[in-house]
Structures are given as structure tokens and as C-alpha cells.
């Protein structure tokens, strides 16, 4: 039970960290786009998609832990 709680805490912290990176990425890409530099748009979207996939994977892990109780 304790290990499960620790895992959940760790996952929550990791998801928050990934989301912070994603917020920064979106603001940086938008800033570059508004300044007329469109080169960063595609890499920004790809990296953001990877971060979302990681977050979704962690959510799936949390659901899995919840169900296995």
C-alpha cells in the first residue's frame, strides 16, 4: 500500500513537471511565431506531442494501479 502511494505521488509530480515543460514550450513557440519565425512551430508540436504521450502513459499507469487494488 505504501509503495503504491509513493508511486502515485511520484507519477503526479512527474506529470506536473512534464506539464510545466509543455507550458514553457507552447509560450516559446507562440512567441517565436508572433515574431515571424515559423521554423520552431513543427519541432515544438512534435515535442509537445511526445510530452502529451508521456503524460497519457502516466495517467494509464495511475488507472492501472487503481484497478489493481
Amino acid at each position, binding site marked *: 500500500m505504501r509503495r503504491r502511494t509513493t508511486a*502515485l*505521488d511520484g*507519477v*503526479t509530480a512527474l*506529470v*506536473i513537471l*512534464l*506539464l510545466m515543460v*509543455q*507550458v514553457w*514550450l*507552447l509560450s516559446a*513557440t*507562440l*512567441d517565436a*511565431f*508572433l*515574431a*515571424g519565425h*515559423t521554423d520552431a*512551430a*513543427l519541432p*515544438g*508540436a512534435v515535442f*509537445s*506531442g511526445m*510530452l*502529451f504521450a508521456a*503524460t*497519457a502513459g*502516466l*495517467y494509464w499507469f*495511475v*488507472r492501472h494501479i*487503481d484497478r489493481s487494488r
Partner: protein
Amino acid sequence: MVDNKTPAPREGESLWREEFSVFQERERFVSRRQLVKFLTLTSLGMFAGNVWIVFKAWFRKPESYPREAIARAGEIPVGGVKLFRYPNPKEQCLLVRTSEDEYVAYSQKCTHLSCAVYYSREENELICPCHNGRFSIRDGAVIQGPPTRALPHVVLERQGQELIAIGMSGKLES
């Protein structure tokens, strides 16, 4: 985790509490799974924002700017300023004569929150009075303050005594 069972009324609790079985603590309780779900949906929103930028970048129309005479050389003194509108009547710009034979022009809209910037002759800088953002007169780059982007630069061409605006750089059409 959320417990869906209705708790039994405690001894000494009033009857209405038993009849009206809404338990605020339970309603407000957010499980870690719900929190992670909310964060995941927020992450999806961020990703959608990035994809939207990609679409905006791909389907952006090529910019075309009119050629417009904005001033005559010698019309303003050295260190003087002339306001004009370019590339459309809604966009206020600012022409500065920095030396005897040198002119620069920028959009007057601050890239932070769109306040009108002005030229300070003493400091030789473009200053936004709202949040004290400062831009270089040489290239419009940010010197200090909250703006993160340079001022859009109006490209000028000189034809005889006429100063003609032929385009803008560092600016995207919305």
C-alpha cells in the same frame, strides 16, 4: 479514493441531514487519479495549441505590402519624429531621423501589450510608457522591460527626396 456509500447518520445528528444526504466533503474530494486525469487533459490542450500554431504557420498567406511615400527627406529635423500609418490605416508607425542622412521606422505598437511607444531623443531609445519597455533605435531590439520581441521594422527606400515604405520585417499578419 471516492467512497460511494452513504455514511450512516451519526447519533445526535438532525433528521434533515439524514434525508438530505449531500456530503460536501465527499463532493469536493479530488482523488489523485482525477487530478492526473485533469493534468492529462490540460496537456492535451497544450498539444492542441502547438498543432494550431503549426497550421497557422503552414496556411499563412504570403505577406504583401504596398509601396507608400511616407515623408520627404528633410521634412523632419535630426532627432525628430513623424507618425504615419502603414501598411493599413489601423497600424500606427513612427519615423525617426537619427542623423543627417539616416531614417528608421518602426511599428508604434509595443510587442508586450500594444501600448504606443515613443522616441526619447535624450536616451536615443524607443520607450513604452506602460511598463517601461525600451527598444533600440538601431534595430528595434528589446533593451529592457517585459517585451520579449523586437519592434516590427518598416523597410524604407529612398527615391530622390521621397522616403518610401516598402514592407515590414518581424511581423506576422493575424
